[in-house]
């Protein structure tokens, strides 16, 4: 009987717990504490934290990919195969070696860059077909080898396709568009420039990340944290630096919750008391036709300018058009509630499931968290300084405090402007004025993300 218990214990997963998993359990508890008891973006951080917990348990049938073709992740040549047709393999087994050509401008010596990569089995099964011969050139995405097994993939393998195939962030944008009133922005179009200037943090953080040794794709993904727009950050990093996705998502959503702590000292430092007391003229009412024209205008113009951001901008404005047209109430309700809520659960848990100890417990995670503060800080500075700059020319002065709302973080950043404005003048309400740059920041972040995607090639 004791032997039976011993045999059963060997079937359990207790022995598979690693020290990285234990550390990550601590990280999960911190994230859950921040979300549940401190109210830090709980809608995202709770699913992320729970996904991270699942990622750091020795699970079975949860994240494993299904068997099938293994495709090349870049253009190159298969150097050699280590398996033959009909051979049984397990997940992680070495199947062969793959070589990528050196990046343009790099030295011809292959030892100067990591050009040789292992081809590993993603699932257990039988090798049924070798699609390419050794030293045969292949393009990115081409099928290299076929591994077959009757077992399907794990639940989160399929859910995570929503991030990998860039489905979830645009769907979240559909809901954001349906929830956003662009009226304050249309009433005072000048505030679009505040949203544009608030991308300064993105640009400066890119330079900072690059100087710390990150590559162009990684730097862009880290820098976009400064846009304070979670779906855009996930969209960009899943495209340019998927291995950094968990750290970037956690940093982006944590700092969004910390906006009321990060922004006020910078706002007070860069503005005088008289500037903070500036009262702005009431916004004019904006009609339905004007709002519909705005949605169409932004869709056409932004997609023509940066086609790479088409899915984000397109879905954002589709959601907004549904909201403003007034004849699609059921669709608006679905976008504002069911769709965005369901996708948020899947998005959060899919991000969390990538937070394995091996990927998260690295020095670069700390660097990303540090660079995230830099990004938020400089984005705040950019918006504030633009407001002050515009005041040199405009007749109706802008309260610079609304400039800080140019970092998206809707509507948190606008609320910070309101609170700081009330501290300077208890009768000065800036909330609606701050909503203009706040929603402009969403468009600005999508445009700069589109710029990075358009100008960077993933080989």
């Amino acid at each position: 009987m004791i032997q039976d218990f011993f045999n059963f214990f060997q079937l359990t997963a207790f022995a598979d717990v690693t020290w990285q998993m234990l550390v990550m359990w601590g990280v999960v508890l911190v994230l859950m504490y921040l979300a549940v008891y401190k109210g830090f973006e709980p809608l995202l951080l709770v699913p992320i934290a729970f996904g991270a917990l699942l990622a750091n348990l020795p699970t079975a049938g949860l994240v494993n990919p299904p068997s099938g073709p293994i495709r090349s992740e870049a253009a190159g040549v298969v150097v050699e195969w280590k398996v033959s047709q009909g051979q049984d393999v397990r997940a992680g087994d070495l199947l062969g070696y793959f070589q990528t050509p050196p990046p343009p401008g790099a030295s011809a010596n292959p030892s100067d860059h990591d050009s040789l990569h292992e081809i590993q089995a993603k699932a257990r099964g039988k090798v049924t077909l070798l699609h390419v011969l050794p030293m045969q050139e292949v393009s990115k995405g081409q099928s290299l080898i076929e591994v077959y097994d009757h077992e399907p993939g794990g639940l989160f393998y399929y859910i995570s396709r929503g991030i990998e195939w860039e489905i979830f962030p645009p769907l979240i944008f559909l809901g954001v568009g349906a929830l956003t009133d662009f009226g304050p922005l249309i009433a005072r179009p000048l505030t679009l420039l505040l949203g544009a200037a608030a991308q300064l943090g993105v640009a400066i953080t890119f330079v900072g990340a690059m100087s710390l040794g990150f590559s162009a794709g990684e730097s862009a993904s880290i820098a976009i944290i400064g846009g304070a727009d979670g779906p855009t950050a996930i969209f960009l990093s899943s495209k340019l630096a998927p291995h950094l996705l968990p750290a970037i998502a956690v940093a982006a959503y944590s700092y969004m919750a910390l906006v009321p702590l990060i922004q006020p000292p910078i706002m007070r430092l860069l503005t005088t008391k008289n500037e903070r007391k500036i009262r702005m003229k009431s916004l004019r009412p904006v009609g339905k036709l004007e709002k519909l024209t705005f949605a169409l205008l932004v869709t056409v113009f932004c997609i023509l300018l940066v086609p790479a951001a088409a899915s984000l901008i397109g879905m954002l404005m589709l959601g907004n058009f549904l909201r403003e047209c007034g004849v699609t109430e059921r669709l608006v309700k679905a976008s504002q509630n069911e769709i965005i809520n369901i996708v948020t659960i899947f998005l959060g848990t899919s991000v969390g499931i990538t937070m394995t100890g091996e990927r998260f417990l690295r020095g670069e995670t700390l660097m990303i968290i540090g660079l995230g503060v830099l990004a938020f800080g400089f984005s705040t500075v950019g918006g504030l300084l633009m407001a002050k700059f515009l005041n040199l020319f405009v007749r109706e002065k802008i309260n610079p405090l609304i400039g800080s709302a140019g970092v998206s973080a809707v509507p948190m950043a606008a609320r910070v402007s309101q609170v700081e404005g009330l501290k300077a003048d208890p009768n000065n309400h800036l909330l609606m004025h701050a909503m203009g740059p706040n929603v402009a920041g969403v468009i600005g972040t999508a445009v700069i993300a589109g710029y990075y995607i358009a100008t960077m090639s993933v080989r």
Partner: protein
Amino acid sequence: MSTHPLPSILATVDVGAKLGISQDLSYQGVGMAIVLLALGAIALVLYLLGKVFQSTVPAKEAPSLQPARTSTSGVPGTAPADAGISPETFAVIAAAVYMELPGMSRIVEIRQSPTAQVWSMEGRRQIFQSHRVR
């Protein structure tokens, strides 16, 4: 670590490339310029569109966009602003509020129930009637 030539808007940067500081600054400068120009262009078009809409729409839309006009005071003698309800009805409502609620009250909004709601209320009434309260 290899350094790559300055990217132009028409060229592409390799995702794994490392840029020198001056190249990096130029790259970011172009990015910021594009964002400012894009949003600036939208702002300009919106400003012009706003002028057009303001010159044509206000006469039709202005009354419906002022919620203050639909409210009235509970003080007898205050002129009602909503043309849909007669002054007599306002007086009756104000008097009823004055009699029923303790202290001074202020009527902020008076709305008529949409017709559809009457049918749903009838449905609810029938459902409740079918249950015996014990």
